[in-house]
């Protein structure tokens, strides 16, 4: 049952990531991987909030493992960082890593803390 929930959540999360990336590339160009940063920060905020909620195992598989899991990505983050550094944009590669660590982990903390406080 939980496997089916993971599949359903990811079937939505992965294409949302793809479309967000396309749209941000169209608006801001390809000089910096804004799309991957955006989905990773938003997905970490969402998963942090979900973890503070009393969810059933099915909902947790659907929204947490499936949706947030597939909305966010590590492989693209790693590859884009390597490519930035290869094409001579070492500064941007470093900014990408620091932004992911600060904003990504920070938003997970905000999600957990705020949702936890709201629930008392």
């Amino acid at each position, binding site marked *: 049952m*939980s*496997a089916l929930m*993971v*599949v*359903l*959540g*990811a*079937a*939505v*999360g*992965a*294409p949302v*990531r*793809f*479309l967000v*990336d*396309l749209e941000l590339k169209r608006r801001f160009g390809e000089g910096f991987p804004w799309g991957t940063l955006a989905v*990773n920060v938003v*997905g*970490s905020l*969402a*998963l*942090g909030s979900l*973890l503070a909620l009393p969810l059933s195992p099915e909902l947790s*598989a659907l929204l*947490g*493992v*499936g949706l*947030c*899991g*597939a*909305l*966010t*990505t*590590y*492989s*693209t*983050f*790693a*590859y884009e*960082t*390597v490519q930035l550094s290869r094409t001579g944009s070492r500064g941007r590669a470093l900014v990408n*890593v620091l932004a*992911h*660590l600060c904003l*990504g*982990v920070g*938003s*997970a*903390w905000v*999600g*957990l803390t705020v949702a936890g406080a709201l629930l008392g």
Partner: protein
Amino acid sequence: MSLSERGSLLPLVATVSAGGALGALSRHALDVLWPPAASGVSWTILAVNVTGSLLIGLLMELVVHRWPGNRLVRPFWGVGFLGGYTTFSAYATDVVTTLERGAPQVALVYLLLTLAGALTAAWAASSLAHRFLTHGGGRNP
């Protein structure tokens, strides 16, 4: 976005969706086989993120040098499968919950080991694949 653009996007969206579902299911299966340690961090997710980064380095070189004409390889295996297989959200929340559980050293090791492992894997796999696939050795300009 115009209607015709939406029409041409639909097969790509469906391909990414199918690949993402398969990738997330693979991650979930590995996580069920090797559940998180008592410390709270999931070394399985670390392994998933590092192996996924290795595979994307290899895939991107294959897409360029072996399958340049195939338009669905990258959406299915790259954006879809490897994007859904690897995850940033579980990494970020694992770091936070491990910190809050009072194990800052474990959280820091997990944070940096995943990062260094994934970057090294993506870099090494694409460099080696590039070398083999272009026959010459060394990176072409």
